Each structure stands twice: as structure tokens, then as C-alpha cells.
């Protein structure tokens, strides 16, 4: 059993780092370019070890993001749950895609994530004027790097 689930600390560490980078200060004009780090890292783990990482992780990470970004509790867990569910359905295909096609599908899923997020944030009474479309492009560009770097690191730390 213990052999079956090694490297949990590494998964938690990557998610923590993703949350820290989400909070790094950026100039006002660049805010729309801020990528959805937590969603990218979670997607990677769902694609590489779908039997361990699933909706429960998405839900908890969403709650933590809500607290960090001071949105109503449940906003990010809702949108993360939906996007992670889509990835859970598609992970077998996404694994076999070449990197550029992976990047395109992740960008499409992150688009859903961002739009749902925007919608819920507006509904719970925060003021966000526009949908950060540019973040979707950044997510697509970042995905191959996340995939390759986390892939080799998780191989090195023997995360199963």
C-alpha cells in the first residue's frame, strides 16, 4: 500500500508553489496575462496519475484558492471541479497527443475554467470588468513546459 502511493509530498509541494506564483505581484496592466497555475499543475497530475488525483483534490485546491484570492468560498472549487472532470474524461487521449495539440486542448479547457470563474465571481458580487482572455493563450504556451518539467521531476522523485 505504501509503495502504491509514493511522493505525495511532491504533489502537495507543486500545488503550493503554484499557489505562491498565483499570488506574486504583477503590474496592473499585466493582470490579464496571469496564467491559471493551479489549474495547470492539477491538470498535469490528473493526466499522469488519474487514479490518485481527482475531484477531491480539485475541490480542496479550489477552496484554498478562494481563501487566498478572497472570492466567495466555492467559486474556484466549482470551476476547478468542472475543468478537472473534463480532463478526467479525456486524459487517455490527451496523454497520446503531441505537445502542441495537448497545449491546444488544455487552453480550451482553461477557457471554460476562466469563463465559469468570471461568471461566478460576478455573480457573488465582486467587480471584475472583463474576461482575461489573454490568460488562455498564456496557459496554452505554458502547458508544454509544465508537462515536460513536472514529468521529468515526478520521474526523478518516483511519484506514482
Amino acid at each position, binding site marked *: 500500500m505504501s509503495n502504491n502511493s509514493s511522493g505525495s509530498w511532491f504533489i502537495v509541494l507543486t500545488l503550493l508553489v503554484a499557489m505562491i506564483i498565483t499570488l506574486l505581484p504583477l503590474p496592473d496592466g499585466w*493582470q490579464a496575462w496571469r496564467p491559471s497555475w493551479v489549474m495547470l499543475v492539477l491538470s498535469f497530475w490528473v493526466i499522469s496519475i488519474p487514479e490518485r488525483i481527482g475531484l477531491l483534490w480539485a475541490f480542496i485546491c479550489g477552496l*484554498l484558492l478562494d481563501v487566498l484570492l478572497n472570492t466567495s468560498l466555492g467559486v474556484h472549487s466549482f470551476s476547478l471541479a468542472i475543468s478537472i472532470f473534463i480532463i478526467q474524461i479525456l486524459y487517455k487521449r490527451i496523454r497520446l497527443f503531441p505537445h502542441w495539440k495537448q497545449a491546444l486542448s488544455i487552453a480550451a479547457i482553461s477557457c471554460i475554467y476562466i469563463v465559469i470563474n468570471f461568471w461566478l465571481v460576478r455573480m457573488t458580487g465582486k467587480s471584475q470588468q472583463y474576461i482575461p482572455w489573454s490568460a488562455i493563450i498564456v496557459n496554452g504556451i505554458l502547458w508544454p513546459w509544465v508537462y515536460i518539467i513536472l514529468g521529468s521531476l515526478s520521474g526523478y522523485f518516483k511519484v506514482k
Partner: protein
Amino acid sequence: MLVQLLIALLASSALMVLDYRYSYLNSLRSAFSTLVSPVYYLANMPSEVANWADNNIVSRGQLLEKNQELKDQLMILKAQNQRLIGLESDNARLRALLGSGRKLRGKRLIAELIDVNTSNYAREIMLNKGSSDGVYLGQAVVDSDGVMGQVVNVASYSSRIILINDPKHAIPVKNNRNGIRAIARGNGLNLNLMYLPVTIDIRQGDLLLSSGLGEKFPEGFPVAKVVSVTRENDQPYLEVIAEPTANISTANHVLLLWNQTTQTQDQSDEQ
């Protein structure tokens, strides 16, 4: 798997409704905030390191120059302060005559910014003081030049401040020149004065002070300076834009103020 999704979505929706509509979850939220507050400190580390380098890697000449500059400034402030002491005792005497027991000094605490969140959802900052230092909900926050905002969220070792230029924030003010009262509401960048009739006397350059009404903010702190007044005769209200006097986007340290009721019992740790 679909069942899991449904459970997750239902749980999130329930949380959203409870949190937004009824704010039942404030204790849960502050517990979570305490749990994740190290993340703020870590995210703030790069700028902290840069600050440290700024402070520590300077030449002796620069330090001497700075020292001289500060000494000059201290001299000027001391001179001004002498006048202030007289005025304060005058003021206290007059207030005593009028029978109003408002005190000018309360407990204060310097706090440091650990995160700025002007990003996605609001104009907010995080401070490194929390309920363990006695910070409470709705507490007023000022910097050296004016009112910054108020506390909206308290964890054990950090707290979240909504700035006065947030679109969801409004503060009661009065004009320093003629005492006209108004409500200044944030618009994301500056403040708008709400519901002033076109005939009212307000000019560009007027200083707005906090009026102390509503009992959130202490009276007499500078809040904003009027930068433009637009009179349109077919509109019932003036359009007045005022710029916050506080260094909203550059301040590194801010001051937390305690109101008068707690001041009497905390007088010992005033200085």
C-alpha cells in the same frame, strides 16, 4: 465519477450561497486564512529580498546624506509639533468646555504590507498583523498621508484591508474649507463624491477629511483631494472626482488605529 462531480458542484454551490448570501462561514474562512497565510509570506519573499538589498547595499556617502536629510526633516517636524502641543491643549480645553470627551490619541500599531491584490477581484492589501495583535473587523487603517481603508478579514497573523478606492467601499467625508459633508465612493482608481447638488460650493483642490460619521473612521484624517468638478445643468448631481491623499499604491507600512472605546483600557501600551 459523475456522482463525484455532482457532489463537488453541489457542495461548492452550497458554500457559495452560505458564504455570499448569509456569511455563515466567516469562522471557517478565517481558519483557512490562518492555514494559508504562509503562502502570502512566501509570495512576498522576492520583494522582501529586494527591499533588504536596497536597505543594506548602500554606500557610506548615501547613508550620511540620508541621515542629514532625516535630521533636517526631524527638526522641521519638531518645530511644527511644538505648535501642535499648544493647539492640542487648547483643543482639549475647548472640548471640555463644550462637554464632548473626544480624545485625539488612541492606540496605534505599525503594520507591514505582505501582499497587494489590486488584481482580479478588488483593491485590497494584506497586512502582517492579525487577531493575535488585537486587529478587529472594520478597523481603520491610515498611512502617513491619509486614510487607506479598513479591515475586512482577520486571520491570526494576517489581515485583509479593503482600500478606499475599491468600488465596494464608501467613506463619509467633509470638506475642510467649509465643512460640507459627503460620501466618497471608490471607483477602482479614485473616489467619486456621491449625491452633491449642483449648487453646492466645492472646488478643485479642496481637501476632504474623514467626518467621523458612521463611527468607522476617526474624525479629521485627510482622505482625498478634489481633482475635478463637472457641473452639468441638466443633471441633478455634481460629478466630483477626488484623488486619495494616502500613498495607496506605494505605501510599504501602514498604521492600524484603535477607536476610542478600546483606547481607554489600552492606554498603557500607547507608545
